[in-house]
């Protein structure tokens, strides 16, 4: 074994990275503009109104989707965030999370559908998803930075890579779990592939897909601290700074804000799916 020289995998990766940066620069700039614009847009929307107005709106949404318990939690939790002075960074983080989640759904659902339609596609995609989920997130922060430079955009990209697999996997699973006799009936009545997808497979797969989307949102949220290491603003940056400066109190406060957002997002999405 000692005779085999070390494989220069690291060198290869770096030369690929260099090549991409050199040749696909305009593409990366375009992606950067789009994602940056999305995050900014959502952030502006979330912070345009005074915090109290938004809290009332979210509470109303929580009451409509869930029940008064969820609404009460939303009011108390969000007031606490506001009280701790973390409203703005929280909304910045939320903008990042929402952008990453929306893009994960936009790309993940069609990829999941493609996986469900073809075993070849699934067999190609599955190992890639395994790789994306198990490779430590820090490792792909670096190329993300070299493609998109510092800021929120590489954070969104890293979040998507980390968070998109559940949406793809569970979309695939949900469609594949549609009972064979139902798809057969759809065929027997002369459905086109698109009719079968929209009238039968997606509606039946919806609860499973929604579980995947819920997980995607949670995973995206879990990336906010890591994203802050490459310059994404938000409540994650508070945690990161608290860790580097050993300020336990600040770290906890910011941590609580993340927890509150996590619970809210989780319950809101879950109840929304159950309500169908």
């Amino acid at each position: 074994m000692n005779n085999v020289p070390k494989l220069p995998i690291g060198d290869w990766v770096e030369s690929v990275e260099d090549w991409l940066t050199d040749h696909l620069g305009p593409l990366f700039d375009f992606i950067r503009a789009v994602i940056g614009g999305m995050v900014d847009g959502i952030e502006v929307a979330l912070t345009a109104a005074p915090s109290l107005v938004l809290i009332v709106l979210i509470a109303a949404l929580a009451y409509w989707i869930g029940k008064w318990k969820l609404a009460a939690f939303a009011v108390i939790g969000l007031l606490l965030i506001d009280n701790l002075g973390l409203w703005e960074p929280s909304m910045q983080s939320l903008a990042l999370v929402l952008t990453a989640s929306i893009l994960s759904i936009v790309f993940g659902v069609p990829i999941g559908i493609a996986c469900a339609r073809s075993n070849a596609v699934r067999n190609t995609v599955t190992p890639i998803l395994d790789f994306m989920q198990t490779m430590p997130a820090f490792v792909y922060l670096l190329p993300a930075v070299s493609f998109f430079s510092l800021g929120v955009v590489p954070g969104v990209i890293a979040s998507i890579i980390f968070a998109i697999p559940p949406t793809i996997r569970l979309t695939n699973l949900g469609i594949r779990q549609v009972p064979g006799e139902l798809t057969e009936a759809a065929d027997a009545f002369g459905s086109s592939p698109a009719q079968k997808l929209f009238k039968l497979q997606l509606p039946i797969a919806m609860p499973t897909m929604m579980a995947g989307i819920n997980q995607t949102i949670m995973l995206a949220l879990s990336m906010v601290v890591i994203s802050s290491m490459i310059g994404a603003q938000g409540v994650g940056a508070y945690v990161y700074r608290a860790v580097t400066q050993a300020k336990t109190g600040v770290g906890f406060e910011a941590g609580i804000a993340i927890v509150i957002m996590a619970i809210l997002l989780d319950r809101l999405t879950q109840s929304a799916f159950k309500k169908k």
Partner: protein
Amino acid sequence: MSIIEVKQLTKVFGHDPKHAVKLLGQGWSKEKIYRETKMTIGVNQASFGIEPGEIFVIMGLSGSGKSTLVRLLNRLIEPTSGQVLFKGRDIVGMNKVELRELRRKHIGMVFQKFALYPHRTVLANAEYGLEVQGIEKKQRRELAMNALKLVGLEGWEQSYPDQLSGGMQQRVGLARGLANDPDILLMDEAFSALDPLIRKDMQHELLLLQARMKKTIVFITHDLDEALRIGDRIALMKDGSIVQIGTPEEILTRPADKFVERFVEDVDLSKVLTASHAMIRPETITPERGPRVALQLMRESGVSTLYVTDKEKRLLGAVTADDASRAVKENLPLEAVIQTNVVMVPPDEVLNGLFDSMAEAKLPIAVVDEQSRLRGILIKGAVMSTLAGNRDASEGGAFYEQRA
């Protein structure tokens, strides 16, 4: 002309189906092909025609290939070789668009496990076939409502399938199959998942529906009773091959081989054979011929009862030897001594339903048609003999007539 003409239709499951077809052509058996090549013959060179308006039953045990065969008809399963002609057009050669059009407009299907869409209401389920055709909402609503009405589900439109009992769910399945008014309805073990009583009801209703709509129905079943009950013709399948095609009566009375014979030997014939199968020719008289002629006739033919009809053969009643001699003695016309309490049944009444009335009736039961014309009479001996398998009651005529 047959609405569906199936020619040498074959389905092979395995790695090299064309090769297996060649082997079948060389006379290899299903077992041998499986042993040598590990390929399974689903359907083996089936050929038959289905006539418009008939209920064509394909019957066989599980694994006989009947469900595969029905799916070859609308290509839910792709045939390996052979032809399926629908009104003369070969379905096997159709491209995707033509096939979709055929399924949308001409061939409906009802499934064993109902296969209703759980996320759609009863109405939306019934509408499905119309919806994929692109028929606009108002019109398809109306057509679907009519179909639901037809199967007796009025008032349930807004329910979801899981709120309905099994029998009602299959009515939805039937409505969905009928809503686009297809030429052919494929029913794959449509009633097999229902419990026996509901199943009987559904069979009955299917026959009523059929009498009204005159659809061509291809009905798959593993249940011989069901096949005999609803089939105009039955195709019996074994190991992927069609063993015999015929009317229920032909299958029962002239089984093509040992397999069919064994299959039908346990059939309760009393539920299949009807009064017309067991009836014998009665001695009749018209009333104006008088009691003396009646007695004379009885003596000549060796019977003790005559059936009295008018000139149009309509049954008026019966007269016994005792009655006739009383009339002669008291100088009465024949009309005066006619017994009018003769039990009457239609010719298509199954024998099973007649046992009680036969036990109670003093005189043999009369079989009369819709115009109350006398077609025959039922005597115990002839019925027994018919049930015992001596199918043609008239052959043993002399013996029964004595007893009558």
